[in-house]
């Protein structure tokens, strides 16, 4: 279980980081979301992984740590709000800057003289 858990966190993080480094806002938002999923899973595992154990102190000798669950809940709520905000901001950036690049500029990939399309109209 530990191996599966750790590798899924790892895959999520690497996909997230890859997407965050893209130049358009949509993949970046997706990357941030994946990254925060990975972080939530990681945070959850900080109370050690265990099966079929009550999250209560004192009633049994073996128990699951309830604190990471509370922490994850907080992190999910905050992450959700932040994602909503960044989505709205990305849409506004699309409207304001005329393209969906994080830098607000479409990089010049070919050598044609199409500068007029590439410049941000400020």
């Amino acid at each position: 279980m530990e191996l599966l858990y750790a590798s899924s966190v790892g895959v999520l993080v690497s996909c997230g980081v890859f997407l965050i480094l893209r130049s358009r806002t949509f993949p970046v938002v997706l990357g941030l979301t994946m990254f925060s999923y990975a972080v939530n899973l990681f945070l959850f595992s900080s109370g050690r992984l265990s099966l079929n154990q009550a999250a209560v102190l004192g009633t049994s000798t073996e128990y699951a740590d309830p604190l990471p669950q509370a922490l994850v809940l907080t992190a999910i709520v905050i992450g959700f709000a932040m994602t909503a905000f960044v989505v709205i901001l990305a849409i506004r950036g699309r409207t304001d800057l005329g393209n969906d690049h994080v830098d607000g500029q479409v990089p010049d990939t070919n050598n044609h003289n199409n500068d007029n399309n590439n410049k941000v109209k400020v």
Partner: protein
Amino acid sequence: MTQHLAFLPVLLPMLAGVILLTSPFGKNITSRRVTSVVLSTITFLVSLALLLKVQADGTQVYAIGEWSAPFGIVLVADPLSTLLVSLTALLGLVCVLYASAGDDEKGSFFHPLVHFLILGVNGAFLTGDIFNLFVFFEVLLIASYALLMHGGDKRNTRAALHYVILNLVGSAIFLIALGVLYGVLGTLNMADMAQKVALLQGDDVYLAKIGGLLLLVVFALKGALLPLHLWLPNTYATAMPVVAALFAIMTKVGVYSMMRVYTLIFGDEAGELSHIAQTWMWWFAMATIAMGGVGVLASKDLRKLTANLVIVSVGTLVALVAVQTIEATSAAIYYLVHSTLVTAALFLLADLIGRQRGDVADRITAGPAVAQPRLLGVCFLVAAIAVIGMPPLSGFIGKVWLLKATLDAEYTFVFWPLYLLVSLAILLSVAKAGSTVFWHHQDSLIESNATDSVEQSRVHPAQLAALIILISGAPLMTIFAGPLSEYAIGAASQLHDFNNNIKIILSGGH
């Protein structure tokens, strides 16, 4: 009532934000302004009351919901955190006052957002629980995202997008660090963590080290330490100046968190993990100071110049935190208050100067003369002398103190020349900016109808009051340098007093 005083600087701004969102206080602009100024004055007075109480009775520990540490969340009001809370409340009051002259109408919800930002900053200063620190960081960040967009243009959207994405990544790294530290230490109360970190053995030591250094990445991002400082100049220069002035406290939250975490948790008593971040902080601070100096020389307008001055001050503060002696920390506390007030004043001044120069705005080139050269010129002179660190104002005292405090540091032969050179660079740029803006006129640029608009942009009484409060910080900090430095030394020695800190926080303040 008085036992709840430590919680009021967090509770009051939250109530203020909610009150300002609801009728009748938030109904029209006049009532919003009056309510907002009154409520921020109350917050400031309450912070001062807390400061006096802490001075009289010692550190206040407030256990939220009576859950005592380390199980519940505690707020720790010690001399350092209450000083910074009062500074934040003062800055909030000044910014609300300044914006009441018209800036608050350029977008919606300016006043509630300022109060929510103050809630987050005060909470971050007061909390004694590291996960709670994360939560307050997020509160202040989401308020700052919205404030950054306030009355903004297209350039602003881009800077805001970068700022938000960077901070989201920062928050994720913060959570990873907290997960690692909780997994190893089994606690999130900072005093309890400090106790347990010395007991770690075997591989756990390395895990805790990873967690501790990941925290440094997060704080460096919030505090704009090189190489994570690139967001700051654009963000601060495109935000509305009054918002930028308010943000002057936000980089200090990062520095303050470094002070807490690396002095208390990973300080002298942390066994194998003591001073893990010291070398990193010191050298990155050096690079930050150098980079800030280059930025100061290269700035083309007053707001960018001020933003780069913020970077220099962050570098200086982090260098002092890295020295980790009582004297360096007390110099850092004095310099922190001074630099916050002065950079905030410079942002506001840049705004006022820019308004009176028409299209040239705050660019450092010859342009139309300002309408009120005497008033703005004198204010600029005082702020410039303070920020450069020339005698007789507070900048000079701070500078001499911090140079003296780093005298025994290991790599002081790097710090002294670098810091003095950068001071020279600041002197040159600020002098050049001042003389160009106030003395080099190019009156042909003034169009016939421009004089009317310049007349209209004369300094509003509310703006003047805000500016005077900030500017007078420099002479006041010079006149009252004695009591202030004693306070700073007291606060620093308490921060470094490991056993006393642990005892006070874990026993609930007695």
